[in-house]
């Protein structure tokens, strides 16, 4: 494997509260190769958005990184001063959030917002930045961009606004784009357009994507690899096709079986009993053990991510597997 573009090692994020610290992310490790699309999937509260925010240095206090490291192109970015971090956001890491209205300034024309980003990160004169902004709007599929460039965000529909946000995230040509639920606020027909736009554009510009979503279907169609999160930890990682077809971790297995599909009409959906634990009540050992149908004595101890071929699962069921049993913690 080539050296990773982004490497997250043993990341730990805590929230200080009066009752002591709450551990929101615990030992999260993953890599993203240049040009790769990594899907991060999990249910609400699993810590997927928090992981994204930690990477771009936008954790809100009292949340803070207390352990581990984040490397972008081999350089540590987890404790950079705010000014340095601002240079990385936008220039090297583009960001797309769920609600396009939160990423766009409602008082500024969209062309000015894109041009400003281009000027700030690529030090181009205004005129050239504007030309590039028009080109970007065309590239994200906004019809007659030379006219629409002077429109305000409210003059666009939800889907068109998300296209503008994608242009904004990509216009400084970052090597990595973090997309947090980019299609969740959109209708299905528009969602499909945005997904394929994001996929094609990032491929054309060679940008890697960290795609955070709760929708396994979106991941299945878009990502190369997937990391499944549960209770602030990584439960399983692997190539998307393999994880979808043959999930290893009992949580992933339950999750996949619980998704209703368009193909088969089942009499009942498989269900995982209970709900994900709150941060204040994460059980000792494996966090999934109390809900796990396959739990056994060993699960009282916390499982490391155990490598199985080029996949990995944090589950004792895979201890001492024949192929490459190097348990990387």
């Amino acid at each position, binding site marked *: 494997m080539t050296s990773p573009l982004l490497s997250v090692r043993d990341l730990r994020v805590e929230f200080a509260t009066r009752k002591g610290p709450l551990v929101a992310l615990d030992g999260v490790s993953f890599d993203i190769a240049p040009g790769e699309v990594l899907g991060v999937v999990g*249910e*609400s509260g699993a810590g997927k958005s928090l992981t994204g925010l930690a990477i771009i240095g936008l954790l809100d206090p009292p949340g803070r990184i207390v352990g581990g490291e984040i490397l972008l192109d081999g350089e540590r970015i987890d404790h950079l001063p705010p000014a340095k971090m601002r240079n990385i956001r936008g220039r090297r890491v583009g960001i797309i959030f769920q609600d396009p209205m939160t990423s766009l300034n409602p008082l500024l024309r969209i062309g000015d917002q894109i041009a400003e980003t281009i000027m700030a990160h690529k030090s181009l004169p205004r005129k050239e930045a504007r030309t590039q902004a028009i080109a970007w709007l065309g590239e994200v599929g906004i019809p007659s961009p030379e006219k629409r460039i002077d429109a305000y965000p409210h003059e666009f*529909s*939800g*889907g*068109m606004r998300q296209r503008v946000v994608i242009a904004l995230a990509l216009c400084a040509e970052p090597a990595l784009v973090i997309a947090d639920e980019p299609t969740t606020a959109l*209708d*299905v*027909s*528009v*969602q*499909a*357009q945005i*997904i*394929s736009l994001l996929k094609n554009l990032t491929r054309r510009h060679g940008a890697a994507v960290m795609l955070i979503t*709760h*929708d*396994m*279907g*979106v991941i*299945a*169609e878009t990502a190369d690899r997937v990391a499944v999160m549960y209770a602030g930890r990584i439960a399983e990682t692997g190539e*998307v*096709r393999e994880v*979808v*077809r043959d999930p290893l971790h009992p949580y992933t297995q*339950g*999750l*996949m079986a*619980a*998704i*209703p*599909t*368009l*193909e088969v*009409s*089942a009499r*009942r*959906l*498989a*269900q*995982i009993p209970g*709900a*994900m634990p709150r941060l204040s009540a994460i059980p000792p050992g494996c966090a999934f053990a109390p809900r796990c149908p396959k739990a056994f004595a060993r699960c009282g101890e916390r499982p490391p991510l155990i490598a199985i071929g080029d996949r990995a699962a944090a589950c004792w069921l895979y201890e001492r597997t024949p192929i490459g049993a190097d348990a990387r913690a």
Partner: protein
Amino acid sequence: MSGAGPIVVVSGLSRVFDISAPLLSRLLAREPRRTLTAVDGADFAIQRGETFGLVGESGSGKSTLARMVVGLLKPTAGHVVIERVDLARSGDKAAQRAIRRRMQMIFQDPFGSLNPRWRVGDIIAEPIRAFGADEAGARLGRRATRARVGELLELVGLHPADARKFPHEFSGGQRQRIAIARAIAVHPDFIVCDEPTSALDVSIQAQILNLMRDLQDRLGLTYLIITHNLAVVRFMANRVGVMYLGRLIEIGETEALFARPRHPYTRMLLDAVPDLAMTGLPRTPVGGEPPNPIDPPPGCPFHPRCPQAIAICRTERPAFRDNVACHLA
């Protein structure tokens, strides 16, 4: 299905909202009145014991239609006849009240639909106090009410002792269980569910959908389910109605509609859903977004996005014939 005839008959149902500016501003700007037709001439019937699903994207009018069916909104034209009583027009107050008891509603947001200041026991007991415990409207004493609430809580998978708690002590999925307990408290025949699982995570969604199906089998319920999630409809419904821009454009048995969609819009919707089976496969999404319902296109409302549109589609609105509204069907 007991073949006892329809429980709900909707005919020519329309709702027009007046969205004009206030009178004075309108006079000053010399603007005419503006209206939005949210639901336009809907016709369908729901058979006793079946689950009828209504799907559509945002702004298609599915929630407005549901609110008219339960009587929360007065129709501008047309009729909703439930058990041979026209809810909006009948002068017979006693008959209306009897019908109201027999239909209940479950809402999308379990955080907004439960009064945060009431204990769960009071929330569930409210319809019992309002309507009585059975068809004759028998009043229950305090102890009997408490016993009935405990019974209902157990029926939805909670504990009788939960009656003393407040809604904030429960997770989203548990709150939706409370909303379901409230809905079934007065032995209704017919429950309208507006996006019952859209606010929930997939593993919790599976629990709630299974619960709704179990209750249907045990209590002989008829459901009208409104959702934008096609997989949920596929799992729950016997028959499906597809809405686009306020109009029902296709109705069919679930199996047939998913296997052989007849309206091009239905086909597009089915193609747009990100699906696990599609993992890694490319596909071409359809272009365009749903038009603004304030200013719908002439002729067939779908023609600007329809890949098969012919001349007549641009000028003439297709009639709803043989369960589909398309010139080509």
